[in-house]
């Protein structure tokens, strides 16, 4: 009987991984083909979606895997972009150096803020992330001499070969894919498993000897780092960095995407980002009251599809494994 089940699930597992492979292949082809149509708006929006997807994926390390709701993630996104932009504009730094400096600065900021935040839990954690994010926002706004304040930081561009939208799209696709892979490995690694164990039962984790605070702090830094990468991609793509990148609304957008896509699956943020972008682009063309509709969508998802859209991906997995996941 056990052998039979094992045979079934093993066969099912093989079938599942074949299906996953097909889907991955199909998606890759589609992504690579986007600029083929030559339709600029699509290329531009796809690039923006990639950047958004990376930002939310980084947040999901904290929210989905770590169970820590951060309402201030935009601060790291902004820091990455502003650092790269400032270096490029004032110090004429070579592109690759600025590109590396952005995420590093974001990671450093995440280390500082994270050290203070992970000492708290639940609502207090949320509020402290919010308070720090507001401080970062205020600093960027006030320090006009450096950041341009609400005029924004402009006056820098990516290297000439990246000025073309199509080329930049492939560049962003390459960077984001690499980051997705890196995050995937992190999430599926022992570190990732420890993180989910902490999320599910922090007391038990402490009991078996896990240094909960240290692991959470590490997650915070990693998440900040990748948010910084997204920020740098954004800065160069838009030829500028603007203060609303650090605003609470940006953090809120990211959380909405997590809800839409589902925070319990690795790919949830990716799906959520695409859906959110479509909604965000199409609804305002119909009505000026788009916040109302987005709000209603959020409520509908929260009430009727709380696991998010990624749940539909379960059809790709054999039943036995699905049940296994649900128990965990």
């Amino acid at each position, binding site marked *: 009987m056990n052998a039979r089940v094992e045979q079934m699930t093993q066969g099912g597992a093989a079938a599942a991984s074949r299906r996953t492979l097909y889907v991955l292949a199909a998606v890759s082809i589609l992504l690579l083909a986007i600029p083929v149509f030559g339709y600029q708006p699509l290329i531009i929006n796809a690039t923006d979606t990639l950047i958004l997807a990376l930002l939310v994926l980084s947040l999901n390390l904290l929210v989905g895997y770590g169970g820590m709701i951060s*309402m201030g993630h935009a601060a790291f996104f902004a820091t990455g972009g502003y650092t790269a932009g400032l270096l490029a504009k004032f110090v004429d730094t070579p592109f690759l150096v600025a590109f590396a400096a952005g995420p590093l600065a974001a990671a450093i900021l995440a280390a500082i803020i994270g050290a203070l935040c992970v000492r708290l839990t639940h609502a*207090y954690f*949320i509020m*402290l992330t919010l308070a720090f994010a507001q401080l970062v926002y205020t600093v960027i706004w006030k320090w006009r001499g450096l950041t341009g304040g609400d005029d924004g930081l402009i006056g820098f561009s990516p290297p000439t070969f990246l000025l073309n939208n199509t080329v930049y799209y492939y560049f962003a696709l390459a960077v984001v894919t690499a980051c997705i892979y890196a995050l995937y490995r992190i999430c599926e690694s022992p570190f990732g498993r420890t993180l989910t164990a902490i999320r599910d039962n922090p007391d038990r984790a402490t009991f078996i000897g896990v240094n909960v605070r240290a692991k959470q702090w590490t997650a915070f830094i990693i998440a900040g780092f990748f948010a910084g990468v997204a920020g740098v991609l954004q800065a160069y793509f838009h030829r500028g960095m603007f203060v609303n990148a650090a605003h609470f609304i940006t953090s809120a957008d990211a*959380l909405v995407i997590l809800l839409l896509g589902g925070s319990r699956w690795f790919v949830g943020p990716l799906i959520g980002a695409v859906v959110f972008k479509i909604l965000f682009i199409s609804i305002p063309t119909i009505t000026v009251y788009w*916040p109302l509709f*987005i709000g209603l969508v*959020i409520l509908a998802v929260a009430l009727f599809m709380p696991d998010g859209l990624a749940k539909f991906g379960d059809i790709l997995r054999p039943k036995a494994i699905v049940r296994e996941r649900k128990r965990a």
Partner: protein
Amino acid sequence: MIELQLISGLVSAAILFLLASGLSLIFGVCHVLNLAHGAFFLLATFLAYMVTSQLAVTEFDFWIALILVPLAVAGVGAVAEITLFRRLYGANILLQVLPTIALIFIISDLVRFFWGLEPLAVPTPTGFNFPIELFGVFFPSYYAVVVVAGALVALLIWFLVYKTDWGLLIRAVSQDRDMARALGVKANRIFTSVFALGTGLAGVGGVLFAPIGGANLGTDMDAVIEAFAVVVVGGLGSVWGSAVAALLIGMLKAFGILIVPQFALAFVFGLMAIVLVIRPTGLFGARE
């Protein structure tokens, strides 16, 4: 000079207290971080406009608004609790926070739909248009109304929470929900009534604020951020804490602009961060 700032700081404190106490109650009892609290405040300012300027029936419209509008806003809060938040109490915290964000979008866009984009003026109640002279400066007498109303509401809440059976149940539920349930307390009804009271308090704040600041879109975000700072400093769940913190922050703003005009607001976030780092439960919050 100092006396004047003290008095104007008192007025700010009154409004802040009304906002923050409701938020604090909702969190303390229902464990919901109601980010939409500012939106209820916003709604109240526009409803106050509607009663006093659009309907404009009697000379006492303001006082009518002061009674009816908070009730209406509390009603909206109760409906939101029953239809929305009640289903989400056990869920993960993302599912509790995001619907409040959704409510912000929905309420503020509905306000735009009904009242448009332009700022609207709300008249001060008749009989309070004369100025009072204090320390060589003329204060609108209406400000006295605000301070007195704030103090009265504070007393009322204190009475409700500490001197009534309902208040006893609230405190029981907020201290230990499961035990309270086990003892037969109908937690659901408590939650709804607390939500209604909390949003109703925001409603009172909105009506009192309207003759000062008018009804404007965008008030919701400013209001909720300041309210959170007060609640954090005072302690989530403590009404007494909200009162003290509201005074503290009201005075901080009033004097901050004298000392360092450029950074007065940054001080508030700074204070919020410091409190959360050093003593997360605030001045009067229960120790976890």
